[in-house]
C-alpha cells in the first residue's frame, strides 16, 4: 500500500477479519454496486461514505477470501473515483497525495517460476491439455507443423506439446513456432526476452529430437494482430505443412465492438479463416466484462473474480500474494480504466462461439482420451475443481464448485 503514497493501514482493533460468513458476499456486493453507482453519478459524498464502510469491513490482508476480493474492488473503485470525481479527492484524502499505483509494478517471473505458477491450479493446464490433444490429433502425418501461439502464458503450453509430438506422432515433424512480440501491458510478465525464451524451447526440442524454429513477429493485440496476419498471408507454406493457431486467453485483448465500432475481433477471425488453418484452438475465460455500464461490469466482475480468490485458500502465502496480485490488477483494469487502457475485455463462451461460427469455423469435439486426461489432472487438484462437457457446442468447461471458469474449444474451417 505504501507505494501509492497511501498511509499504511493501521489495524482497527474491532475488526476481526476471519469471521466473515458466506452471506456477507452478497452484502459486500451490494455495497460495491452502490458505490459504483455513486461514482458513476458523481455523488462524491455517498461514494465516500460507502468507500469508507467498505474499506473497514474488507481489509486487504483478511483471512477471508471474500474480504480480500472486496478489498480489491474497493481499491479499484477508489482509483476510479479519484480520477473521475475530483471533488472526492480532497474529501477523501484531505492533504495526503493519492496516486494510482503505477502500471509498471507488475511482478516479473522467471520462466521457471512462471512454469510453476501456472500449474498451481488447473486454470491454464486445462486449456493446455485440451488444446494439445486436439493439435496432436490434427497434425498427424504432416511433415511440418507451424504453430502460431497467441498465449497469455508466454509459451508455457509448448513444452508438453513438444513432448507429445516426440512421443505420439509416428513421424516427428519439423516444428515451427511463431509468437508475437511480448506484450508488457498485462500480467503475467516474464523477466527475459522472447529470444531467450525461444532458445530455451528450441534447446528443449532438441533434447526430444524435434527440429524446431522459433520466430517472433512484431505485432500487437491493439490492432488485432494485423501484422501477424499479414506475415502469415505472405508466408508461403511448405508442402504438407499444417497451420495451427493456438489462442490461449489472448484474443480477449483485441478490441471489440465496445471499444471500436469496427470489431477487430471479427476482422481477426475473418482473416484467420482466410488462411485456411488446419486447426484453431480457442481457450478463454467464461465471463462478460465488456459492458460499458460500470455497475453491470462491477457486478459481472465480482461474480467471476471471486473464483480465483476462492481457489487460493490453500496456497502458501507468497504464492497467494502473487496469484491474487494478478487478479487485483485485472479487477482494477476492468473497473477503473476506460478506453484503450481497459484491455481486459473478456467475453462469454457464447459470444465467442457466435463469432467463430459467424466466421465459418466449425467446432470439433475433443477426444475421450483428452477428457480422461483432464479428469485425472483435476483429480490432483483441490476438490472444488471439475469440468463439464456441453454436447450442444462441443466445448469443455472447467468449473470451480460448479461455476464456469474457463472454456476450451477446437475449430476447423468449414
Amino acid at each position, binding site marked *: 500500500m505504501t507505494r501509492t503514497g497511501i498511509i499504511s493501514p493501521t489495524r482497527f482493533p474491532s475488526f476481526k477479519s476471519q469471521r466473515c460468513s458466506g452471506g456477507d458476499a452478497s452484502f459486500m456486493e451490494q455495497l460495491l454496486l*452502490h458505490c459504483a453507482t455513486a461514482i458513476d453519478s458523481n455523488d462524491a459524498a455517498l461514494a465516500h461514505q460507502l468507500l469508507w*464502510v467498505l474499506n473497514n*469491513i474488507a481489509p486487504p490482508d483478511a483471512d477471508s477470501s471474500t474480504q480480500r476480493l472486496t478489498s480489491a474492488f474497493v481499491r479499484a473503485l477508489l482509483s476510479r473515483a479519484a480520477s473521475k470525481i475530483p471533488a472526492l479527492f480532497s*474529501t477523501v484524502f484531505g492533504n495526503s497525495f493519492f496516486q494510482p499505483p503505477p502500471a509498471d509494478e507488475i511482478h516479473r517471473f522467471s520462466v521457471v517460476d512462471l512454469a510453476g505458477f501456472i500449474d498451481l491450479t488447473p486454470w491454464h493446464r486445462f486449456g493446455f491439455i485440451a488444446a494439445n490433444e486436439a493439435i496432436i490429433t490434427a497434425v498427424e502425418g504432416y511433415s511440418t507443423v507451424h504453430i502460431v501461439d497467441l498465449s497469455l502464458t508466454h509459451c508455457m503450453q509448448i513444452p508438453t506439446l513438444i513432448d507429445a509430438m516426440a512421443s505420439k506422432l509416428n513421424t516427428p515433424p519439423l516444428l515451427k513456432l511463431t509468437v508475437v512480440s511480448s506484450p508488457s501491458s498485462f500480467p503475467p510478465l516474464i523477466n527475459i526476452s522472447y529470444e531467450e525464451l525461444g532458445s530455451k524451447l528450441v534447446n528443449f526440442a532438441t533434447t526430444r529430437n524435434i527440429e524446431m524454429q522459433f520466430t517472433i513477429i*512484431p505485432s500487437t493485440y491493439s490492432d488485432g494482430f494485423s501484422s501477424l496476419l499479414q506475415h502469415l498471408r*505472405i508466408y508461403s507454406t511448405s508442402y504438407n505443412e499444417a497451420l495451427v493457431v493456438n489462442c490461449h486467453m489472448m484474443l480477449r485483448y483485441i478490441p471489440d465492438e465496445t471499444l471500436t465500432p469496427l470489431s477487430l475481433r471479427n476482422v481477426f477471425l475473418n482473416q484467420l479463416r482466410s488462411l485456411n488453418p488446419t486447426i484453431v484452438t480457442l481457450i478463454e475465460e467464461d465471463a462478460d466484462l465488456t459492458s460499458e455500464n460500470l455497475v453491470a461490469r462491477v457486478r459481472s466482475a465480482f461474480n467471476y473474480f471471486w473464483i480465483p480468490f476462492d481457489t487460493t485458500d490453500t496456497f502458501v502465502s507468497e504464492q497467494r500474494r502473487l496469484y491474487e496480485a494478478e487478479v487485483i490488477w485485472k479487477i482494477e483494469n476492468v473497473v477503473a480504466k476506460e478506453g484503450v487502457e481497459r484491455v481486459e475485455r473478456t467475453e462469454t463462451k457464447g459470444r465467442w462461439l457466435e463469432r467463430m461460427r459467424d466466421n465459418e469455423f466449425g467446432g470439433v469435439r*475433443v477426444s475421450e482420451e483428452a477428457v480422461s486426461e483432464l479428469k485425472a489432472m483435476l483429480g490432483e487438484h483441490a476438490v472444488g475443481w471439475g469440468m463439464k462437457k456441453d454436447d450442444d457446442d462441443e466445448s469443455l468447461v472447467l468449473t470451480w464448485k460448479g461455476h464456469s471458469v474457463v472454456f476450451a474449444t477446437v475449430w476447423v474451417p468449414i
Partner: protein
Amino acid sequence: MAPVELENSSTVSGDASGVSSTGNLNPPPKKKRNLPGMPDPGAEVIALSPKTLMATNRFVCEICNKGFQRDQNLQLHRRGHNLPWKLRQRSAKDAVRKKVYVCPVSACVHHDPSRALGDLTGIKKHFCRKHGEKKYKCDKCSKKYAVHSDWKAHSKICGTKEYRCDCGTLFSRKDSFITHRAFCDVLAEESAKNQTNKLYPQPELKSPPAAAAPLTPPNVSAETEPVKIASPSVRSSSESPNPLEVIMEEAPRTIGFNVSSSVISDDDRSGNNNCTPRTIGFNVTSSGLSGDHTSNNNNNNGIYAGLFSSSTSSPSLYASSTPSTSLFAPPSSSMEPISLCLSTNPSLYVGPTTIQDPHPPPHFLTPLSLPPPQPAMSATALLQKAAQMGSTGSGGSLLRGLGIVSSTSSSMELSSHDLGLGLLPPCSSGGSGGSGLKELMMGNSCVFGPKQTTLDFLGLGRAVGNGSSNPVGGGLSALLTSIGGGGGMDVFGTAGEFPGKDIGRSL
C-alpha cells in the same frame, strides 16, 4: 441438452484439514471438532509432564497394576477381573467431561490452555514433531521424522511416480515436470557444454551483433527488435520466399549438424535485423552445408543462429550417416497431402455422456444462487437494513456481533486518519451534494479532531453515541456509529459461526 457435470469426486482434498493453525490432528470421527482457537470452555485441561506424556503405559489397572497405552484397552482388561457391576461402571463425571491436553514445553503455543489440543494422540505427536528428536529416516530420500506414522506415510509415497529434475525439484505430475524442465537452467547448461565442442568458432557466430545467440550473455538481448511494428512486406519484394521452403523442396536433405549456415549471418548484417520477423533457426538442418544455399537462406527470415548440437544423449542423430529418414522423409516420398482427418476420425467424437453430478453447485455465495435479484435497494436503505439487522441481533452478518448499538462512548476511539486506505471519515461539512448525509447527522457539528478525540463514523462527538435512543434517524447513524466503534467486538458475528472458508467448502 443440459451440460453434464464431471465433478472431481476424489476424496483427497487439496485443502488439507491441517491448514488450521493449531496443528490439530483429526480426532476420532464421532467427536465434534472444535474450531481452532475456541476450545470447549467446559473441558478439563490436562497437563502432563513430558515423561508421562510419552509414557507408553499411562493407564494402569488398579487391581493388578498392569499398564496400557489406551484407556479403552484398560477397560477391556478390567472386565476380566469380574468386578461387581457397580464397581465396573465408570463414574458419570469421568465419562462425560471432555479432556484437552497442553504441551509441556512452556514456550510452545500449545502450552496455553486456550490452545490445548483435544486429543491425547494429537498432543503426543505434536510434542514429538515439534520438540522431539527425528529418529526415523526415509531410506530413499533424506527426510527425517520424529513421529513413526509420519515416517511410514511418507515412505509409502516417496519415489513413487515422481519426476525429478536435475536441479532437484520434484514433481508429482508429468506435465508440470516437462514444462519446468524445458525452461530449467540446468538443461541450458548441459547444452552449452555440448555445443562449444562441436561447432563453428565463436567469433563468426558472434559478429552479427543481433545474432540472438542465446548462449551468449543476456546482454545481447539489448538488441531486441524495436517496439514499432514494421511491415515485413518491405523486405519480401526482393527476396525469395521462405528459405525453409527452399530447403524442403530440394532434394536430398542431408542432415548435418543442427547448425544452419551460420556463415550466412555475416551477409545478413545489412540492416536485416530490424523490423523484420526474426527467426531463430535452431537445429535447422540446413542442407545449407553446401554453399549454394547460403544465398537462399539469407532471406528476410534473417537471423539464423543455429548453435545447438544435439544433446549428449543422442549424438548419433545428427551424423549424416544415421538413418535420416527417421527425422525427415525425403521430399519425394510420402508427401501426399493428408486430408484433415478430423471429420472422419472416430476418436474425436465423443458420444453423449450421462454422468451424474455428485456435487451440485453450492449455494454458499448468494449472488449467484439467487437469480431473481433482491429488489434493488438504495444505499441508504441498505445501510438502514444493515443497522436494523445489527440492532435486533437477528440474521444479518455485518453488525450482528455488536448487538448493543449504543456502545459506550469510551470504546469509540476512532483515529481520523488511519483507516486502511487513509480515508477520512465522511463529514457533512466536507461533503458536497450528499443529500442523504445531512439527514443522517444527529447534530450539525463535524469534528475532525486530533487523533485522541473520540469520533464516530460521522465525525461527530460523543453526542451521537447514544444512537439507539433515536430509533428513526438513529438507525443509519447507529449503524455508522457502530461500525466505527465497538472496540473489541467482532464485526461479523459472534463465536459459533464458521469461518468463511469453511462455508465455501461444504460441497
